[in-house]
């Protein structure tokens, strides 16, 4: 075990895969010599060589296509989209091509690509450096969708993503790269001393099907992913309500048993995400839970999400779900 921040943990996962699987190649804008604008691939080109870790031309659709081609010809590309907001030029290659090639080819061609991308708000990024577009991928069969939240699960999940023989869209909560975020922009802790900053060296993986039970309680189930896991932790403490906090980790396929069992136990559920409410993955969670746990529910399932507006710049703290909003939602579930 070594203490790492999330950037180091991601770096460690990629380093391990590069070291132990010669088919792994890493590319994206500025990921080569420079090591990425968030430094996730720092030092990897020097260590593994310029044909294994390299800068791609500034064309997300272009290097997604390159990844596709490499993937069907036996490599295991790990590509970085510099900000999740810039994944959309590659959307066609991801949803029409990567996601479907195994099926469309009768299993003859497969595409084991990992698409890593920093997502979410909290860094004053405004419209186009803050979005969290996971729902736009969870709706596409053929893709696995992962959202890490701590150094530990960042490493474990990324290792599994790279090892997975299906395309994986891997979201990294950029606000948590250097420390957890509890919803107070004036409180900027690092990962130092955080139990989830203890990360195994070498190969370490977490299956792409398990939620993580972050807190255990009896009266409400809070479901979140990414940065919101930490904000929810704070909110649960503030609320004084005994809650299960489930960090979903993998959104497709999500952990049915963990979610259903907790919802049945508590009968009250709050789902929290940064992305806009309408058609967010929270909608899927709510719909699935009410389908499966209808007779156990004691109160309407609550969603606390970003608003149905573009992500703002100066007023971002009024946009992102805050501990206050989440606390209120938890309390509302207890009122009935």
């Amino acid at each position, binding site marked *: 075990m070594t203490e790492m921040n999330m950037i180091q943990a991601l770096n460690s996962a990629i380093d391990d895969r590069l070291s132990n699987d010669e088919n792994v*190649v890493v590319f994206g804008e500025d990921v080569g010599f420079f090591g990425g604008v968030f430094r996730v691939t720092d030092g990897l080109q020097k260590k593994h060589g310029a*044909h294994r870790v390299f800068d791609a*031309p500034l*064309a997300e*659709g*272009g*290097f997604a*296509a*390159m*990844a*596709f*081609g*490499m*993937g*069907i*010809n*036996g*490599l295991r*590309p790990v590509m970085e989209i510099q900000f999740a907001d810039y994944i959309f*030029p590659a959307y*066609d*290659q991801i949803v*029409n*091509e990567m996601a*479907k*090639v*195994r*099926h*469309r*080819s*009768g*299993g*003859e*061609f*497969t595409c084991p690509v990992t698409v890593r991308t920093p997502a979410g708000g909290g860094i004053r990024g405004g419209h186009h450096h803050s979005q969290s577009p996971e729902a736009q991928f969870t709706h596409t*069969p*053929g893709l*696995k969708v992962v959202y890490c939240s701590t150094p530990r699960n960042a490493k474990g999940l990324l290792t599994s993503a790279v090892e*997975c*023989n*299906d395309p994986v869209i891997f979201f990294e909560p950029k606000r948590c790269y250097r420390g957890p975020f509890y919803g107070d922009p004036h409180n900027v802790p690092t990962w130092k001393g955080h139990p989830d900053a203890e990360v195994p060296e070498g190969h370490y993986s977490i299956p792409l*099907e398990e939620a993580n039970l972050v807190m255990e309680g009896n009266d409400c189930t809070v479901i979140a992913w990414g940065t919101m896991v930490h904000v929810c932790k704070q909110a649960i403490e503030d609320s004084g309500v005994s809650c299960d906090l489930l960090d979903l980790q993998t959104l*497709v*396929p999500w952990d*049915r048993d963990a979610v259903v069992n907790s919802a049945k136990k508590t009968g009250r559920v709050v789902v929290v995400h940064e992305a806009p409410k309408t058609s967010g993955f929270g909608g899927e969670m709510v719909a699935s839970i009410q389908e499966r746990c209808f007779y156990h529910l004691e109160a309407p399932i609550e969603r606390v999400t970003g608003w149905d507006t573009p992500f703002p710049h100066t007023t971002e703290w009024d946009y992102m779900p805050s501990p206050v909003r989440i606390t209120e939602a938890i309390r509302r579930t207890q009122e009935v």
Partner: protein
Amino acid sequence: MVDERELETASPFSVGKPPARPDQEPGFAAWPWSPTDLTRPDPTTCKSEDTDAHAHGLVRVLGDDDLADGEWNPSLDDETLLEGLGWMLRLRIFDERMMKMQRTGKLSFYMRSFGEECIAIAQTMALETQDWIFPTYRQPGAQFVRGRSMISMINHCIGNIEDNVKGRQMPVHYTWKEGRFISVSSPVGTQFSQAVGVAMASAYKGLDEATITWIGDGASAEGDYHYAINFASTFKPPVILCVVNNQWAISTHANLATGGRNFAARGLPYGIPCLRVDGNDFLALYSATKWARERISAGLGPTHMEIYTYRAGAHSSSDDPSVYRHAEEFKFWPGGDPIERLKNHCIKKGIWSEDKHEKLAELLDEEVMAAYKEAVKFGDLANGPYPPASTIFTEVYEEVPWHIQEQREELGK
């Protein structure tokens, strides 16, 4: 700049016009190019800028007299010539049969290679067997050259229980990994940029493998075209990038889709050697592709090619081109018919005759019918049996995840 395309007048911006609309007679200019126009630069030293003339002219071998001439003549032996002719004729007859079957509902849809049979066949013959083919829907002929059984191809088209892609894709969307023929996808253009990645992987693994890919004149307007050219320019992988300029994208003539003078030269500013090749000339295509392959063997990377041809038939079985172009436009096209041209060449060489040609056509027709009869034994779209409904749920992922398993159980089939 004065636009040299014909334009719609009275428009505040340029709107191009095709050579002719249904009620007009197509007035194609005679070709100014002849087989002796262009030198064949040494492929192992030639630079992009040495191909200016080749990008703006036309690489031809078969002249208007159907004789082979010029530096690009690959001097093929008789056997190879007749093999190519055979595959082309086989493809045309195959297409005709499939089209008829489509009309009877045995398959949902079909796309012919009519007028473009030469392309994939000559080019695949010029490549090595380990090379990757990344086609559009108009290069099925490559599979003949690589030896795919016709029955297996028909099984796919009629979506029966033996279809290797399990009825999941529309007809003509072949996949055949054994023959290194990569899965056809409907979104046009995507294969072009992906092919660069396939070639990068071959280079990465240090293998002597080329990848060839095609894109239509229409689809070359997609971003994928630009990605392919620029990534090939940047990384110089062993890829052959071919724009099939058959002049039409469904109803849209290339004049309406670009104002450029040609497609071939687009690779020059990217430092890629460029050739413009007569797409109905078996020998020219064979030769140009060999040249590009020699560059790859020498470690020099990509070649960009415009294949200048003409879509002789309808876009697909859903299309009726007489609505938007002269019904006989192909007859006016100066590039001729690729099969006729190679046939005449072989006859002039004394290795073929009209009689032999007719006999071959009959044999091939029988072969196609026999294959067809064999294939329909496994079902067809009109009557089934189809691949079981359970194939909907498999191979979406490597393993069936719980939610798809639940859905499969819900369907109960």
